[in-house]
C-alpha cells in the first residue's frame, strides 16, 4: 500500500506541505469562536479578527461593515493562499490542487445557469460566484438555452467538459434539469478525482479515498433526502450516486428505494461510521443532519493532518478554511440580525 513517499516526497512537495501546515495553524480555534460568539456588533468581529491572520485583509474596510464584506475578504485570503500554492506546485500536485476547485466550478455553472433562467443580471450573479471556481468564459454561460448549447459553447473549454458526457440532452433547461445536471456533474467529478487519487497511490490514495468516500456518501444521502417526494424516479436517483464509497453498491440500492427520512436512517444505521451521526438526531428530523455531517467531515479532515507526505492535507486545509468561512458568515449574520441565541446552531468548531 505504502510506497516510499518519505524518501522522495519532500523534493517537490516538502515546501508546500510546510506552507499548508503553517496555514493550518492559523485556523481559528475554539477560543476564537467563543470570543466571536460574544461579539455585539460586526465591528467587534472585525476587531477580533484583526488579531488573527485575517487582520490585513479586513483592516482597510470602512465602517459600517456588512456580512458580505467580511465573507468576501476572508474568501479572498483563502484564494490568495490557494493561488500562491498553485504557483509553487509541480505535477502532480498542481493537478491535484486544480481538482479541488472543480467542485466550485460546478456550483458556479449551476448558479449562473439557474440565475439566467430566472432572469437575473449576469454581473450580479458573477459577484456571487465562488472565486475559486471562476474560469474565463463563465459569463458566456448566460447565452446557453439548453444543455447541448451549454456544453458546446462554454464548457468544452473547461476541465468540466469530460463530466458532461452523461448529461447532454437537448431539453430546455429548467430547475429540475439543472439540479440533475449538478448532481451528475458532481458524481462524475468525484469519480474522476477518486480515480486520480488512486493513480497517485501511497498515503495520498489512502487518505483521499476515505475523504472522498465520505463526501460521496454524504451527497448520496442528501440526494435521497432532497428527492423524496419529487418526480425523480428511483432509477434516475440511483444514477446520481457515485460509484464508490462506503455505501456503494448495496447501500445505494437501499437508498434508491427509500421513501422517507426514517428509511434513510435505517439504511445508514447499518454502517457503523454513520451510525453515530444519525444517533444524534431524533426520529423524523433532518434539519440538523447537515451540521452533523459537517462536524464529522471536520473531524476527518483534521485527522488528515496527522500523517505526513501526502496531498490530502491540501484538500483538508481548503475544506477546513471553507468551513471556517461558513462559520464566520453564520456568526456575522447572527450578530448582524440580532439572533445571537442561534449563533451556536451551525458553527462547527474546527479545533
Amino acid at each position: 500500500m505504502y510506497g516510499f513517499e518519505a524518501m522522495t516526497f519532500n523534493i517537490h512537495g516538502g515546501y508546500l506541505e510546510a506552507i499548508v501546515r503553517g496555514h493550518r495553524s492559523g485556523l481559528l480555534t475554539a477560543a476564537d469562536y467563543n470570543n466571536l460568539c460574544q461579539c455585539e456588533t460586526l465591528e467587534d468581529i472585525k476587531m477580533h479578527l484583526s488579531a488573527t491572520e485575517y487582520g490585513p485583509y479586513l483592516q482597510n474596510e470602512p465602517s459600517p461593515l456588512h456580512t458580505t464584506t467580511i465573507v468576501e475578504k476572508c474568501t479572498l485570503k483563502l484564494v490568495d493562499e490557494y493561488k500562491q500554492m498553485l504557483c509553487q506546485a509541480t505535477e502532480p500536485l498542481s493537478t491535484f490542487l486544480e481538482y479541488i476547485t472543480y467542485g466550485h466550478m460546478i456550483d458556479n455553472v449551476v448558479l449562473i445557469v439557474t440565475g439566467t433562467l430566472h432572469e437575473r443580471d449576469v454581473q450580479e450573479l458573477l459577484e456571487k460566484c465562488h472565486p475559486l471556481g471562476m474560469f474565463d468564459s463563465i459569463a458566456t454561460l448566460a447565452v446557453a438555452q439548453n444543455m447541448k448549447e451549454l456544453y458546446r459553447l462554454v464548457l468544452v473549454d473547461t476541465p468540466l467538459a469530460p463530466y458532461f458526457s452523461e448529461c447532454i440532452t437537448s431539453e430546455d433547461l429548467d430547475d429540475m434539469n439543472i439540479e440533475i445536471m449538478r448532481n451528475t456533474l458532481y458524481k462524475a467529478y468525484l469519480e474522476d478525482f477518486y480515480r486520480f487519487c488512486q493513480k497517485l497511490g501511497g498515503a495520498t490514495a489512502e487518505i483521499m479515498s476515505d475523504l472522498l468516500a465520505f463526501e460521496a456518501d454524504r451527497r448520496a444521502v442528501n440526494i435521497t433526502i432532497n428527492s423524496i417526494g419529487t418526480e425523480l424516479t428511483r432509477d434516475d436517483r440511483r444514477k446520481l450516486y457515485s460509484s464508490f464509497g462506503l455505501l456503494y453498491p448495496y447501500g445505494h440500492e437501499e437508498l434508491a428505494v427509500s421513501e422517507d427520512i426514517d428509511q434513510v436512517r435505517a439504511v445508514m444505521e447499518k454502517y457503523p461510521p454513520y451510525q453515530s451521526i444519525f444517533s444524534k438526531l431524533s426520529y423524523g428530523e433532518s434539519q440538523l443532519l447537515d451540521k452533523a455531517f459537517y462536524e464529522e467531515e471536520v473531524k476527518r479532515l483534521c485527522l488528515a493532518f496527522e500523517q505526513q507526505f501526502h496531498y490530502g492535507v491540501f484538500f483538508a486545509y481548503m475544506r477546513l478554511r471553507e468551513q471556517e468561512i461558513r462559520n464566520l458568515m453564520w456568526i456575522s449574520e447572527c450578530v448582524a440580525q440580532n439572533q445571537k441565541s442561534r449563533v451556536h446552531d451551525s458553527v462547527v468548531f474546527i479545533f
Partner: protein
Amino acid sequence: MGERGREGCCPPMDLMRSEPMHLVQLIIPIESAHRTISYLGDLGLIQFKDLNAEKSPFQRTYANQIKRCGEMARKLRFFREQILKAGFSPAVRSVTEADLNLDDVEVKLGDLEAELVEINANGEKLQRTYNELAEYKLVIQKAGEFFHSALSSAEAQQREFASNQSGEESLETPLLSEQEMTTDPSKQVKLGFTAGLVPREKSIAFERILFRATRGNVFLKQAVVDNPVTDPVSGEKVEKNVFAVFFSGERAKNKILKICDAFGANRYPFSEDLGKQAQMITEVSGRLSELKTTIDAGLVHRGNLLQTIGEQFERWNFLVRREKSIYHTLNMLSIDVTKKCLVAEGWSPVFATKQIQDALHRATQDCNSQVDAIFQVLHTREMPPTYFQTNKFTSAFQEIVDAYGVAKYQEANPGVYTIVTFPFLFAVMFGDWGHGICLLLGTLYFIIREKKLSSQKLGDIMEMTFGGRYVILLMSLFSIYTGFIYNEFFSVPFEFFSRSAYSCRDLSCSEATTVGLIKARDTYPFGVDPAWYGSRSELPFLNSMKMKMSILLGVAQMNLGIILSYFNSKFFGNSINTWFQFIPQMIFLNSLFGYLSVLVIIKWCTGSKADLYHVMIYMFLSPTDEIGENQLFPGQKTTQLVLLLLAFVSVPWMLLPKPFLLKLQHDRHHGQYAPLPDSEESLQSESNQDSHGHEEFEFSEIFVHQLIHTIEFVLGAVSNTASYLRLWALSLAHSELSTVFYEKVLLLAWGYNNVIIIIVGIIIFICATVGVLLVMETLSAFLHALRLHWVEFQNKFYEGDGYKFYPYSFALIDYEEE
C-alpha cells in the same frame, strides 16, 4: 548617569547588574487616567502588566476608543495611499507638539475623507467617460478603415467582375457571386453589425465562442490597437483589439451582445456612412478636449487637497498611533468597583520612582483633578524583568549576549566583559593589520555617516552591519594590534619596530634555509621577528606559539567565568554555591589546565626543551615515575602529585555536599511553622503569586541535576580547553589563505612582466582579499568568537533565563511602526 541616587554601599554597576526593579501599583482617578498614561508614555520607564488578560479585546473598557483609533488609522492609510498615488510625499516634519484634540482630528479626518472620496468618485466618473470616448474614437478610426478597405476591395471586385463580364467567362469566375449579384434586393438579408473593443488576451476565445454560438454565421474583423488602451471600467491600461462583427438575424444579435458583455467587450454605436464617421470623429474629439480640461481642473483641486493633508499627515498619524497605544494601555488596567479610578500594576526601575511620581503629579495638576494619583510599591516574589541601560556603543555587545539568553534579574552580565574579550578573541583569529585597516575604514564610514544612515532604511545585511558598527570598530582595532604581534600585513612581514634580530652566517647567505641564521641583535621588540617568515621552521614556530597562546587565553577566560559565578553567589547570598561549586571548580580547572598554562609560561621563560605533552600525559598515567629530561622546575613531581590529588578530591566535593545541604536547608525551613503574614497586603500579594512561592523539593531531581552539572564541568574543562584551540586553527587558516593569495596570485602575476597579466592578477587579488578574507573570514571568525563566548565562557556562570524589560514608551512605538 551618575546623578541617580542609589541606596547602599555598592558603587553603581550599570552594566554588570541589571537595574533594580520594583513592582509598583498606581491608582489613578479616572478623569486624569488618559493624561497620566500619556505622560508615562513620554517617560517610557514603566512596563504595565495586563490585569485583564482573561477579557477579550472588545469586552474591555476602552474598546470603543480603540475602534475609533483603528478607524482613523484606516483613514490615514487611505490618505497615505492616495498621496503616494498622486506622487506627493507626506511632509516629514518634526513631530513634537501633540496639542491636537483627538475628537477634532476625528471630525476633520471624516470630513476630509468624505471630500476626497467624492472628488475621487467625480474624477472617476469623468475619467470613465473620457476613456469611453477615447475608445469610441479608436473604434471609429479602426472600424472606419475596415469599411474603407472593404469598400475599395468591393469596388475592385466589381470592376473585375465588370471586366470579366465583358470578356469571355473564365473558369475562375465565381459562380456564387453571380448568383448573389442577381438576387432580388428584397430577399437580401439585412446584415447587422456591431463594433467595439475587446481585450487582446481574450480575443481568440472571443472569436471562438462567437463562431460556435452562431455556427459560423458571423464575420469578425479585428485590428490591433498599438498602444495600450485605458479600460473605462477598471481604469487600467490594457492591450486591446478593435473588432467589428457582422451577423444576420435578431437571434444572433442577442447572442452576440450577450457574448460581448461576457467578454467585457465594450460596444459602441457606429454608422456605415463615411461622412457621418468623419463628423463623429470631430464631435468626439471636441468632447474629449472639453473633458480633458474638466479632469485637469479636478486633478488640480484634488492635488491641493492632498497637499494640505500631506502637510498635516505626520502629525495626525503620530497622534493616532499614540492615542491607540494609550487606550491599549488603559485597557490593561483594572477598573475599580466604584468606577472612579483605575488600578495599574507594572514594573519600573527603582531610580525612576521620582520621575514617575513627578509625572503623576503633573498629570493631576494639568487635569485639575481633585485627587492625586497614588503610587505605591508592591512586594512580590515574581522575577522582575531585566533592564540594562545601554548606549549606542554598548548596545550591540549587549545584543550579542541577549541573543543567547536575557540575563536573570541582577545576575552578573557577561556583556561587560564581552566588550573587550569578544573583539580580542576575534582579532586573535583575524590577526593581520592590513586586513584590520580595511575593516577599520569600512566601519569608520558607517560611524561618520551614522546620523544619516540611522534615519534611513537599509537592506537586511547592511542593517546588521550598521547595527554592529562599534563591535566591528573594536574588532578592527584589535586585529590591527594582533596583526602587529603576528607581524602580518596582507601576509607580508615588515621590519617595523627595528631590524630583525637574526642575520645570515656569512655574506652569501647560502645557508640561510639549510643550517639557519644566527642571532645578531637584540630580540625583536614587539611581535614575531620577521625573519621567521619564509624560513623552514616558520610553521612549527608559529603553530607552537599560537597553540600555547590559545590555551593561555582559554584558561584565562574560563577562570574569569568561574570567578563571575563567585560574584553571583556572593551577590545572591548563596554560600553553598561559593563553597561547593566555585571553590572545587577553581581547583579542578587550575590544577590541570592552570598548571599546564604555568608550564607553558615557564617553558617560554626558560627556553627549556621539555615535552609538555609528555608531562601532562604521564602526570595521569604514572604520576610516581621520574620525570627525567622533561623536568621544568625542581619539585615538579611532588607538585604534580598534589595537584592530581586535589583534582580528584574536587570532583566529589562538587558532586555530593550541595544536594544534601539543600535538603537539610529545606527540611529545616519546613520543619518550623511559618510566621503569619503581618499585613493584609502581603497576604494578598502572596495569594497572587502562590504558584511561584515555594517550589517543590525533589531530592532525587536535585541530585541528578548536580550529577549532570558535575559531569558536564569535568568533561567540559577538557573539551572547552581543547575548543579554544580554534583560535589557533582559524588564525593559521587566515594567515595561510592570505599567503596563498599573495604569493600565488599577486607575486605570480608580477613575475610575468606583462601589464595585462599584472592588472588581471591585481584584480583577482583584490577580489579574493575582499571576498574571502575580509567578508567570509570575518564572518567565520565572528561566529567562532561568538561560540567561545556563548558556550565556553558563559556556561561557567550564566543562567540567562530572565526576560527583558519592555517599557511602555512612545519612542519605542514610533520606532516600531516605522
